[in-house]
């Protein structure tokens, strides 16, 4: 079209008439054939320098027009009409009124005939894309794309960089289907290196373009698309960290991620004795092959699940760990993302020496006794895991996902334990010493295959899942224990145990699961599910005492057994979901028919149990005005007793605490309700989150405990009504705009009631004990930050706790507890940064617990970047005041106790971190 109109650019001489100030451009347009005025022709004034539309008008029925208030300047006057060829004129508007005499337009149909006859050129073939493979055309090293294009047959590049393909000017150059900095084709071709181009595609079909960008922008021009080689997106990033106090403590790590297109290769190693026992969440995403997976839910929501390793974080218990970790991750996508592979291997070794002291006061009827114990131990855990996920999108309606995980763990433990119990008359009751060591090997393999199918009808779906899990554990342990029992302070009896135990456990589980969803209307959906699972579990335990040769070969029959458990579940379910604009509602239930078989192979006794469990659910969500909503959820579930509760395997490791079975146990039923309200005002930056949640259990599983005169406890599980839990959570968050301070506060409360049964001498009957615990608290938070300057937050919290026991007033307590947590980050002159975190916690003094009840844990660090962002030095001190104590206190219906354990205390560390990268950087979430 441009060629056609170019032929008809007419240079007309212009008559001008002087007028003051405002300039009017006027004239008329007529048809070359009939010499009649043309109505509705567009007269557009474009700025000559950049073709930007300045003013436009249309001609009246007589073909006349006028444009008022035109500024003096140089313009292009473009006259267009749908059925006539364009006319383009240059126009110099001075401080005058400008009249353009007459613009004659030529009908396009006439024009077309002429052009076709004149040129006689064949009509060009439109359609297929021409593709050039870049590497087949040799260019010098370092050449740009323009040089490459010059080599391609059918493509010419002139001295100004104008590209012509198949005789037509190329209007657009795309890079991987996207526009490269605006409209000028030259920008891409001059700025990209030829060796990163995989293919050069030339096309002029609109649909091709639409396929690339997914957006139909109506391009029908000659277009070149440069497809880049995958390894053009190639790079790496990582960090190396070395920390030491030049004495006891160290924390070293190396992490790297190398990517090439969709391929990701990452590895890490950690060596630490300061509690960094694994990758943190952010590092896991970048270097650990992030275990999170995402599912779209039926209601349009998103569910993100993260499979943690369980022991990623150091909780202060279990002594001071020393750990070595390593991991490797590989992921890639193939065939435009239709197939993806995700795999990894991890290994870790954690050694933790531990020490613990415990002081307990026990109540037996109207008297009491004290038990004091000391234990020391050492645990060494070696864990290895591999994972593999393979996903295939077969077509737009079918996808398959295969997941496989394997674990291999070895745990070695040895511990020394001693305890003595003294009556309230200061007479010895028992005296126990125990030495044990064990080695456990665990291994497991989990395989899962998921198939998803979407039917042609929207929202009609079928998913099927099958999984097969195998796990086994072998445990070899040695136990030596010596127990002396006293009556009125005089030795009464004693026993000595010296045994070796072997315990083998093998579990196989096969689960199949199918869900079908049928849309009854655009808003109403019906789903059916069916789950079938079968589990078999072999559990062998053999205990041996020493024979005359001091070898553990004499089998102890009372402690040796071989069990086979089998469990079959059939669980059909149905649910109905209504999705409206203002609210969602769903209701459903499933029923599980469980069949248990317990086969005691050593005694040839088998028992079977059958349970029918119900799982009703209902939920309602109401969308309110603004960003606000109310959600109400209910679910109920029956829980069948476990085989261990019905018929435990006898274990005599802790002879003062023996668990026995209860074959008469019934299922329990728990009702869960929660009600949430939230709103958020984005512009005012304030919001409220509040929730009420509770559960009530019928026929709950509770403990029935019997303590004898030698402080020996036996316990079993029984059913009881009346256990419940209710909680309130709320948080109101707002911003005071002027000083830019964020404040949040919220009351919270929870109440729980737990039943248990207790028999203590001299009583011979069980007493029902009701434990009621409640706490009412208030949280407050204040935060202020200034980007790159400082960040301060202070979060105090206070609560009142009430604990009451129905049979033992000594186990009741009312007290205050509180904490203040503060965080400060400040950027100092000379690029130094300081970070300080102070945690203060306090509990009201209770004469029963003489230990210190106030702690202030203060950690701080001073950091500075050296060589820009590449190197960072940090000097940090953990627990500056050296106040951290491993301390716990607890009480219940028959005792209260205090525990002191070894934990990480004050240390300082100098850390050097080197961040390296090329073409990439670590991600931090979205």
């Amino acid at each position, binding site marked *: 079209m441009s060629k056609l109109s170019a032929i008809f650019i007419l240079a007309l001489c212009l008559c001008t008439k002087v007028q003051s100030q405002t300039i009017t451009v006027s004239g008329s347009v007529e048809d070359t054939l009939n010499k009649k005025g043309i109505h509705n022709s567009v007269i557009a004034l474009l700025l000559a320098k950049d*073709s930007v539309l300045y003013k436009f008008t249309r001609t009246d029925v007589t073909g006349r027009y006028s444009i008022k208030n035109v500024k003096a300047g140089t313009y292009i006057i473009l006259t267009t009409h749908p059925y006539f060829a364009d006319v383009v004129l240059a126009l110099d508007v001075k401080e005058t009124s400008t009249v353009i005499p007459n613009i004659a337009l030529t009908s396009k149909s006439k024009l077309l005939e002429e052009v076709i006859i004149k040129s006689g050129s064949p009509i060009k073939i439109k359609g297929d894309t021409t593709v050039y493979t870049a590497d087949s055309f040799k260019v010098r090293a370092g050449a740009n794309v323009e040089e490459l294009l010059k080599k391609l047959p059918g493509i010419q590049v002139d001295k100004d960089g104008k590209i012509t393909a198949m005789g037509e000017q190329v209007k657009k150059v795309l890079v991987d289907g996207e526009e490269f900095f605006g409209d000028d084709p030259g920008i891409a071709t001059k700025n990209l290196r030829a060796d990163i181009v995989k293919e050069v595609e030339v096309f002029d079909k609109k649909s091709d373009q639409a396929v690339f960008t997914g957006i139909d922008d109506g391009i029908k021009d000659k277009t070149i698309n440069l497809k880049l080689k995958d390894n053009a997106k190639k790079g790496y990033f990582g960090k190396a960290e070395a920390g030491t106090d030049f004495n006891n403590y160290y924390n070293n790590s190396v992490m790297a991620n190398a990517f090439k297109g969709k391929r990701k290769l990452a590895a890490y190693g950690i060596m630490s004795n300061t509690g960094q026992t694994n990758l943190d969440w952010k590092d896991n995403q970048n270097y650990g092959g992030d275990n999170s997976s995402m599912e779209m839910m039926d209601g349009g929501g998103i569910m993100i699940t993260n499979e943690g390793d369980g022991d990623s974080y150091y909780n202060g218990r279990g002594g001071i760990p020393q750990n070595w970790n390593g991991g490797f991750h590989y992921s890639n996508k193939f065939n435009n993302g239709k197939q993806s592979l995700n795999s990894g291997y991890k290994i870790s070794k954690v050694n933790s020496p531990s020490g613990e002291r415990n002081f307990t006061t026990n109540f037996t009827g109207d008297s009491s006794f004290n038990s004091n114990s000391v234990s020391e131990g050492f645990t060494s855990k070696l864990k290895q895991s591999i994972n593999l996920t393979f996903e295939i999108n077969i077509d737009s309606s079918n996808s398959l996902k295969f997941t496989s995980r394997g674990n291999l763990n070895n745990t070695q433990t040895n511990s020394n334990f001693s305890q003595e119990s003294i009556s309230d008359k200061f007479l010895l009751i028992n005296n126990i010493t125990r030495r044990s060591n064990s080695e456990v090997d665990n291994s497991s393999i989990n395989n899962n295959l998921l198939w998803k199918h979407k039917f042609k009808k929207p929202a009609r779906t079928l998913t099927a899942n099958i999984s097969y899990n195998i796990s086994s554990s072998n445990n070899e342990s040695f136990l030596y224990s010596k127990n002396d029992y006293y009556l009125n302070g005089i030795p009464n009896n004693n026993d000595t145990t010296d045994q070796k135990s072997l315990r083998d456990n093998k579990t196989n589980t096969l689960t199949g699961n199918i869900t079908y969803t049928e849309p009854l209307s655009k808003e109403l959906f019906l789903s059916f599910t069916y789950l079938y699972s079968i589990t078999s579990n072999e559990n062998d335990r053999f205990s041996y005492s020493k024979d005359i040769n001091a070898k553990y070969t004499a089998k102890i029959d009372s402690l040796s057994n071989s069990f086979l458990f089998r469990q079959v579940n059939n669980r059909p379910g149905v649910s109905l979901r209504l999705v409206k604009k203002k609210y969602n509602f769903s209701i459903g239930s499933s029923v599980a028919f469980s069949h248990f078989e317990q086969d005691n192979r050593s005694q040839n006794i088998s028992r079977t149990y059958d349970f029918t469990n119900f799982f009703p659910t209902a939920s309602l969500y109401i969308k309110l005005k603004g960003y606000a909503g109310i959600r109400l959820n209910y679910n109920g579930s029956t829980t069948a007793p476990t085989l261990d509760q019905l018929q435990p395997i006898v274990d005599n490791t802790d002879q003062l605490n023996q668990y026995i079975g209860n074959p008469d146990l019934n299922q329990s039923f728990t009702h869960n309700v929660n009600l949430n309200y939230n709103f958020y005002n984005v512009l005012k930056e304030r919001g409220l989150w509040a929730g009420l949640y509770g559960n009530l259990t019928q026929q709950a599983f509770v403990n029935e405990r019997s303590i004898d005169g030698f402080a020996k406890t036996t316990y079993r599980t029984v059913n009881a009504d009346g256990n419940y839990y209710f909680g309130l959570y709320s948080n109101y968050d707002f911003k005071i705009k002027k000083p830019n301070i964020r404040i949040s506060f919220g009351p919270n409360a929870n109440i729980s009631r737990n039943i248990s049964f207790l028999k203590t001498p001299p009583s011979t009957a069980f007493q029902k004990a009701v434990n009621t615990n409640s706490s009412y608290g208030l949280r407050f938070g204040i935060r202020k930050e200034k980007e790159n300057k400082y960040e301060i937050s202070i979060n105090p919290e206070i609560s009142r706790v009430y604990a009451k026991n129905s049979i033992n007033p000594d186990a009741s307590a009312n007290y205050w507890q509180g904490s203040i947590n503060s965080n400060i980050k400040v950027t100092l002159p000379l690029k130094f940064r300081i970070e300080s975190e102070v945690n203060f916690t306090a509990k009201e003094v209770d004469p029963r617990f003489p230990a210190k009840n106030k702690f202030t844990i203060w950690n701080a660090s001073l950091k500075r970047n050296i060589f820009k962002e590449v190197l960072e030095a940090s000097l940090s001190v953990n627990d500056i005041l050296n106040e951290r104590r491993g301390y716990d206190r607890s009480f219940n219906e028959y005792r209260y106790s205090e525990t002191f354990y070894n934990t990480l205390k004050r240390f300082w560390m100098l850390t050097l971190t080197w961040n390296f990268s090329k073409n990439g950087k670590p991600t931090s*979430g979205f």
Partner: protein
Amino acid sequence: MKYLLLIALPFSVQSLQAQVFVDKGLIEYTVVVNNHKAMGESSWAEMFKDKIPKLTTSYYQLTFNDDKSIYVFDRKDDKTKSPFGNDNGEESIWYNDYAQESFIQQKPIFGNTYLLVDSLLPIDWKMTNESRVIAGFHCRKAVGVLFDSVYVFAFYSEEITVSGGPMGLHGLPGMILGITIPRMFSSWVANKVEINGVNYNKITAPTRGKKKKPGDMEATIIDATKDWGNYGQQVVWNMFL
């Protein structure tokens, strides 16, 4: 060239000339958003991409009569729904008065409904020689810049004499029948133009919502979304288009 024949030949230029110009009617636009591109390339986005449709399609209608128009959501393709989609447009009403160069928009902004009243956003249009046919209408291409740096590729038809377009876009010598905004990963392309049986009574200014000048809202919204990165930027653009 074949292309030209198709347009030129069905018309007998002289006889139809008086009737071909349209100054009132209804245009339906197919609005397509490329979700995958909009999400960027973070590792999180990569995880989501396989699970959500690449393109989300919805349909909007512009009813225009001489110098006034109203633009509203009509329906969407449920198969292409994305949980990340911005569905504010479904609740919005754009009312434009091209003669007065003013607009009144009823828009939900972060959950509250506002009535935005102001002059139409001036756009510098750069004219080009390119053309194509959209919904049977011959269109010319112009390139505009919005919000300082966002390129808009528009196709307008002189055959419709109203200088309007989807949302508040305007200012070309004809009706905008196609728009692509690459940085918003979206396109608006007319799929039909109806002239008969159109209800023009619909073209009335909306009245519901707190009355505001967009300029007054802009600073607050930019402040509130400044930490949202690229997504926040998209939110702002969507809000003032």
